[in-house]
């Protein structure tokens, strides 16, 4: 399960970055190297066969680069526009993950994105944190899920 989820997340992120940012080279590496002072954290709630949350951690520099590529405009700070655009990206990636999981007969839905702090201390059955490196900056995906009982 953990491997399927991990693969679905990496593939979905890869597809979205290729289609929306024309970036096809992504590297997947452990969380140890992911150290940023400023991040935009977007949580996508998961319900169904799996329940919990996926938190997308976008460093400020990555967030601004993403919005710049999409809009062709310069952005100097993370404001309501940037946060909303980045939230929609997290929503799109998560939607693709849920579609991929449904092909393995794992039925889930996603909840609307919300800006959040880093995840709490609660323990989950499935916990992974991976850093994805791209030409416009890193992002980190924190998965915190339980199998529905």
């Amino acid at each position, binding site marked *: 399960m953990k491997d399927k989820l991990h693969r679905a997340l990496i593939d979905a992120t890869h597809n979205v970055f290729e289609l929306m940012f*024309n970036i096809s080279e992504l590297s997947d590496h452990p969380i140890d190297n992911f150290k940023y002072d400023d991040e935009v954290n977007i949580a996508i709630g998961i319900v169904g066969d799996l329940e919990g949350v996926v938190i997308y951690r976008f460093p400020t520099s990555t967030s601004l680069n993403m919005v710049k590529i*999409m809009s*062709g405009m310069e952005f100097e700070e993370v404001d309501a*526009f940037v946060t*909303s*655009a980045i939230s929609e990206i997290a929503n799109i990636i998560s939607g693709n993950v849920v579609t991929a999981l449904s092909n393995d007969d794992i039925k889930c839905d996603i909840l609307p994105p919300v800006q959040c702090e880093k995840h709490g201390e609660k323990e989950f059955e499935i916990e992974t944190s991976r850093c994805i490196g791209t030409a416009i900056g890193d992002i980190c995906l924190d998965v915190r899920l339980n199998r529905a009982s």
Partner: protein
Amino acid sequence: MGLRPIMNISGYKIIRERNVSIMLWKDNYELGVPVIDAQHKELFRRVESFLQALRSEVSWDEKIPKINGTLEFMKGYVVEHFRDEEEYQKSINYPGYGFHKQIHDGMVNYVQEVSKQYEQSESNERLMQEFGGRLLAWLINHVAAEDQRIADYAKKKGMSGNEG
């Protein structure tokens, strides 16, 4: 400035492209189906005009008249474009029509809901900035991913308008 229908394929209007560069538009969004590409470029022009008004470096009060005008126009154009695109899908018997229409309906509902909240809030800036950011990301993904499937089907069936 009015749009100029120049020909018909399966009853679907093709809009003549104006010779204006669109900052938001990137070549890789082009699907290779002229009828869809022409409408997408027009939609991107409308959204770009809206975003430029939204992000211009003047006070919010000064932006409001331009924002309200472009928002109102864009609301109408989004609905019109989706309707035309759905007609095109029906004309080529696109099998994903039902699912695609659900996505369109979801966006139309969102646009209408935000517009209502915006009016009730008496032109709240944060609401409009959030709308602009989501619209930008949604539109790019929709054109680059969802609409690509229509184009792939049309080309496979030899109905893209590029043939012969």
